[in-house]
């Protein structure tokens, strides 16, 4: 049935014929037609990566196939969401090896975007923990891949936006935990210089990320709060926490039931928010032991927080710049501040090394920003793209809804190889999205 669909940014919205399957047999039937399609999970990428005129949803294909509680190896179908996985693994003393900022993505999406988390500099991206994948190719055949078996397919599937085939089965290694709590340390930095220094000083911490005030000018330019974390051990917990050291957290959610008017977010309200967010940490350093959900998934506490950006939606802009390009980071923040285009969520993180052909992370600074869609935004982002390119950076496809193909092609030096692998396993480009067509990945 045709319906209007959009991903998390609510931009763009397109008409799509969405089909579901619960069993592989049903999927085979769907693939027997000639229509092109893109696999789709929970629609938590931001832009148009999983949009197409035909989509095949994996959400009913969500079964857990095996879970070895002694060695932490987990195997599932691709449509299961991370929150469901956590419900099963946490009570057994295991955690996701890598998790993005929301638990409402599917395992298939985690592979297709090769998601990263606050521990990228230590543990790498999600793909690093994969043992094996099954894909259903556009012809209907099933193929297994891993670092050893069909490595070209594996490499192009991790971060490959679903373009190689429909990811059906995923086997990966979990991380052992003693408790589900996190020892969190928050440190205030008066400006960008200090913040970057802190990242380096605390690089041995497993988890690190910073919130940054991108509207502040002058000596406090780029002020922010660095948030660090380690999995808590039993002795870190208080008496109440000790009663249930492996408890699930973050079950309480509030809902934003309708879209807020888009004028609500302006330079003034963002400044006020930033002021409060910064000022709430009245001490230079705060240490606490908190549940994993408020640490990893603070925004999941508000269902449909994306409606806060109004009906027109928003664009998330995430780029990475090499470590030596600190000047580029300053230039981009400067431009945003000059434009008065404040973003509620400006998140800075330092990536560790990563070699891959299509995954987004590479060593350097990554900054993620939200901008409500309005006149002039797309032109402004095109300008930022040029700065990113000039400093040798690139843009994250899972967040993207608007970049021009040359920006992608310059940012990812192995793109030709990626395109050749897509051609090999997805002949005729039967699997394609609005994004892959826009970025010339599935066109000739």
């Amino acid at each position: 049935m045709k319906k209007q669909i959009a991903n998390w940014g609510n931009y763009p919205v397109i008409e799509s014929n969405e089909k579901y399957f619960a069993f592989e047999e049903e999927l085979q039937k769907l693939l027997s037609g000639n229509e092109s399609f893109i696999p789709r999970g929970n629609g938590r990428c931001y832009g148009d990566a999983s949009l197409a005129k035909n989509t095949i949803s994996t959400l009913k294909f969500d079964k857990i196939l095996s879970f070895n509680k002694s060695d932490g190896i987990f195997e599932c179908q691709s449509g299961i969401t991370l929150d469901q996985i956590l419900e099963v693994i946490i009570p057994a003393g295991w955690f996701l090896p890598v998790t993005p900022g929301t638990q409402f993505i599917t395992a298939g999406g985690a592979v297709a975007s090769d998601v990263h988390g606050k521990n990228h500099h230590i543990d790498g991206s999600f793909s690093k923990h994969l043992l094996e994948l099954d894909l259903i190719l556009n012809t209907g055949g099933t193929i297994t891949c891993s670092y050893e078996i069909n490595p070209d397919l594996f490499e192009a599937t991790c971060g490959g936006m679903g373009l190689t085939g429909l990811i059906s089965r995923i086997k990966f290694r979990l991380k052992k935990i003693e408790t589900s709590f996190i020892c969190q340390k928050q440190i205030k930095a008066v400006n960008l210089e200090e913040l970057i220094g802190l990242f380096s000083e605390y690089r041995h911490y497993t988890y690190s990320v910073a919130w940054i005030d991108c509207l502040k000018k002058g000596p406090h330019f780029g002020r922010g709060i660095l948030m660090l974390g380690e999995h808590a051990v039993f002795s870190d917990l208080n008496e109440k926490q000790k009663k249930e050291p492996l408890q699930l957290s973050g079950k309480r959610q509030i809902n934003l039931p309708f879209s807020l008017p888009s004028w609500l977010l302006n330079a003034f309200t963002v400044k006020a928010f930033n002021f409060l967010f910064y000022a709430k940490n009245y001490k230079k350093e705060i240490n606490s032991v908190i549940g994993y959900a408020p640490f990893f998934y603070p925004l999941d506490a508000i269902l449909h927080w994306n409606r806060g950006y109004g009906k027109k939606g928003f664009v998330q802009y995430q780029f990475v710049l090499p470590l030596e390009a600190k000047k580029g980071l300053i230039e981009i923040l400067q431009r945003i501040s000059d434009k008065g285009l404040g973003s509620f969520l400006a998140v800075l993180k330092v990536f560790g090394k990563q070699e891959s052909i299509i995954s987004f992370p590479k060593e350097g600074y990554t900054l993620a920003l939200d901008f409500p869609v309005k006149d002039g935004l797309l032109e402004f982002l095109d300008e930022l793209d040029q700065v990113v390119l000039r400093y040798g950076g690139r843009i994250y496809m899972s967040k993207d809804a608007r970049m021009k193909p040359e920006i992608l092609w310059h940012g990812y030096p192995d793109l030709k190889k990626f395109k050749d692998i897509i051609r090999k396993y997805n002949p005729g480009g039967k699997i394609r999205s609005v994004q892959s067509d826009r970025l010339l990945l599935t066109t000739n």
Partner: protein
Amino acid sequence: MATVLILGATSDIGVAIAKRFASEKFDLLLAARKPELLKPLESDIYIRYGASCSLLAFDALDFKSHTGFFNTLQPKPDVSICVFGILGEEDEAFDDWDLTKRMIDTNYTGAVSILNVIAKYYIAQKRGTIIGISSVAGDRGRASKLIYASAKAAFTTYLAGLRNKCFEYQVHVMTVQPGFVYTKMTENQELPKAITSTPGQVANIIYNAYLKKKNIIYIKWFWRYIMLIIQCIPEFQFKKMKL
């Protein structure tokens, strides 16, 4: 440990009911035409809830096999839930007797055939619960659901009679009347969001109603009133309407 039998376990509502009962520590007997499809569900349910499943081949249309099917069940279920059914293309069915008959047989005859066997056993044991998933469509006949609605009406009437028959033997029969539900069956229809349920919601309501030994439940509750209004439209008016 209690055991529940789900007839039609590959359907979306069947899967959701299986998970809901498994989460309450029921062991499951999952019956479907192609039980091999349920292997992933079996591992899923064991890992999530620690409940064990038996996967059983069952064909609603193979009436003669039903007694044998039930006799081989070990252990016998405490609760039996009849979920299977087909919607079918009504225009096609009007021209094609085989399809019409298959719709009647799946939604009505097959259900009666297996539930007679189960009820007989429960009556002899003087315990057991039968839950039948019918449909609000059966509450009033109409052109767009000609065969489906009439078969479901018959099934609803059968369940009411069975409830009456079983009462004195402490056997409980519950009729479930779902309205719109997002499932494979309705994937190609545009459903009004406000009055459409998810399979998970349906399973939850059924489980709670089972605990309370309800007789007839509508999912969701307002469907009872929607159908009441539809039933109140006088026939001379109703026959002119397109619903």
